């Protein structure tokens, strides 16, 4: 790297970010690391406890284990399903037909509406007796479950709801599909490739960077799932979120409860770092594996 001709002026321009980085990211990260080794209620000064918080989280906190498993199940269910549905919708919208734009709007709109409002809506959709879902199921002769109040169905309920919000992912796939040069398809057709073969040999490699992007963003986002569970799974009393029997207690919800309901700030900080390393590991793993299946045009990245 050259010494750079713009020197101080350069720093002046990036100063807003640099100061923000130091004050709002780097500084708090150090403090958070320190806090994670203390016991702190905010009402009295922090007390050093060494790595006891981490030890407790990893070896002696069955509720954390439950929340971690819940989160993993949710990620494993909702990310691939979300990608598949988004890709399916994008493929449909990529067909050159009149009026497709209306459907694009219909699919995309839910994804930008207010999450809390959406949660209210789905809370009522999942009502076992007065809700839309079980009413529809009853028409085909199925007695629907309790959904959010069923230990088995609570997470699938949230996954189902998340599928309603795949619009953003869909749009990215759509953009990727529309960016594929038509010549590639024509060339494949000349080689005698059928529709399926064209999809596998042309479409899939060409959109693989978009798949990776959506995958990574999706995993990071779903690891941090909070609002749905917080708004939809409790009674009016604080502390009841995450039910039934902790079936929707996700890591971030657990962290929130520790931090802002029990005010165990040290423990919550340690939880945040554990979560950070989980997300980091998942992301790095994705990136590593991606080298094998993501196709970059001209090998640039």
């Amino acid at each position, binding site marked *: 790297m050259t010494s750079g001709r713009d020197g101080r002026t*350069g720093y002046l321009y990036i100063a807003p970010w640099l100061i*923000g980085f130091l004050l709002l990211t780097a*500084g*708090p990260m150090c403090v958070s690391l320190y*806090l994670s080794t203390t016991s702190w209620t905010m009402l009295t000064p922090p007390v050093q406890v060494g790595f006891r918080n981490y030890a407790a989280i990893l070896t002696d906190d069955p509720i954390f284990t439950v929340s971690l498993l819940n989160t993993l199940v949710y990620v494993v269910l909702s990310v691939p399903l979300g990608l598949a549905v988004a890709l399916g919708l994008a493929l449909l919208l990529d067909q050159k037909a009149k009026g497709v734009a209306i459907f694009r709007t219909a699919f995309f*709109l839910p994804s930008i509406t*207010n999450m809390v409002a959406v949660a209210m809506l789905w809370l009522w959709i999942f009502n076992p007796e007065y809700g839309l879902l079980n009413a529809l199921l009853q028409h085909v002769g199925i007695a629907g479950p309790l959904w959010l109040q069923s230990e088995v169905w609570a997470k699938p309920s949230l996954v189902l709801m998340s599928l309603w919000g795949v619009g953003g992912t869909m749009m990215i796939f759509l953009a990727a599909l529309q960016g594929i040069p038509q010549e590639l398809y024509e060339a494949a057709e000349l080689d005698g490739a059928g529709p399926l073969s064209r999809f596998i040999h042309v479409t899939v490699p060409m959109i693989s960077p978009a798949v990776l992007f959506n995958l990574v963003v999706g995993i990071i986002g779903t690891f941090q799932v909070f609002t749905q569970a917080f708004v939809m799974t409790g009674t009016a009393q604080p502390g009841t979120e995450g039910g039934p029997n902790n079936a929707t207690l996700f890591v971030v919800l657990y962290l929130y409860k520790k931090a802002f309901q029990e005010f165990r700030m040290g423990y919550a900080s340690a939880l945040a*770092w554990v979560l950070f390393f989980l997300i980091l590991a998942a992301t790095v793993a994705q990136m590593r594996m991606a080298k094998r299946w993501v196709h970059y045009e001209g090998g640039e990245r």
Partner: protein
Amino acid sequence: MRRMDTSWRATLTMTLRTSLLYGILSVLGAAFTLPLVWMLSVSLQDASGVFAQPFQWIPPSPRWENYIDAVTLFPFSRYLFNTSVITVSVVVLTVLSSSLVAYGFSRLRFRGRDALFAVCLSTMMLPGQVTMIPLYAAYARLGWIDTWYPLIVPAVFGSPFYIFLFRQFFMTIPREYDEAARLDGAGRFRIYWSIILPLARPAVATVALFCFIGAWNDFFNPLIYINSPEKATLTLGLHMLKNQIVGSGSVQWHVLMAAALVVMIPNVIVFIAAQKHFVKGLQMGGLRG
């Protein structure tokens, strides 16, 4: 004869394909819109209609008063004002600071620039929970709890994702413009302010839009920082309304649905008004990631 036959078959396949496509799209479109239609229907029921079996999709006498109840029970105009002020501030500050920083990263050369940019990008990966508690403690010490400062002030420092988007866009603006302006005696800031930023209008629109949706829909930050109902945003207000209604003797789901629908409306308006920029922005953000 043969030729006619194949073209006839081709037309038939095309028609079949198209009708199949429309068929699937219609089913899926209905599946995506049904919840909203149902929501509208619930919001127009009376207290017993909500619990009626079977459910009447078209209520015998639609109660539009539910909407009046919703916006009175829940100080809608107050929350709308609060949310608007917070959101506009965040959008303006973010666009200004992020574009300025992006200009620095894309047009100026200085020691450590690329390394710093890499750091900037990598902070996007950092889950907010890691810094949440120290920030909360710091804001508490500053006396900023239950004020809008924690919601607005961070925007002064820009946001990595938007810095990235701006930088991507600035890279596509030919440097000849800068050179020409410099020959005319324009300084760095002038080039940024009167050449680059106006040329980057599509990027400004996209960032503003994303930022708007993000700030408008934000739930977590108002949840932890705002205590007083009169300072709440629409999202937080809706949540408080839900707890208030559920905590009281009778849950008025029809009113709650009306309130939720009202909260959704601004998003829909913004979306319809700026659909193009959404599409562009998602392409920009997604593909070059």
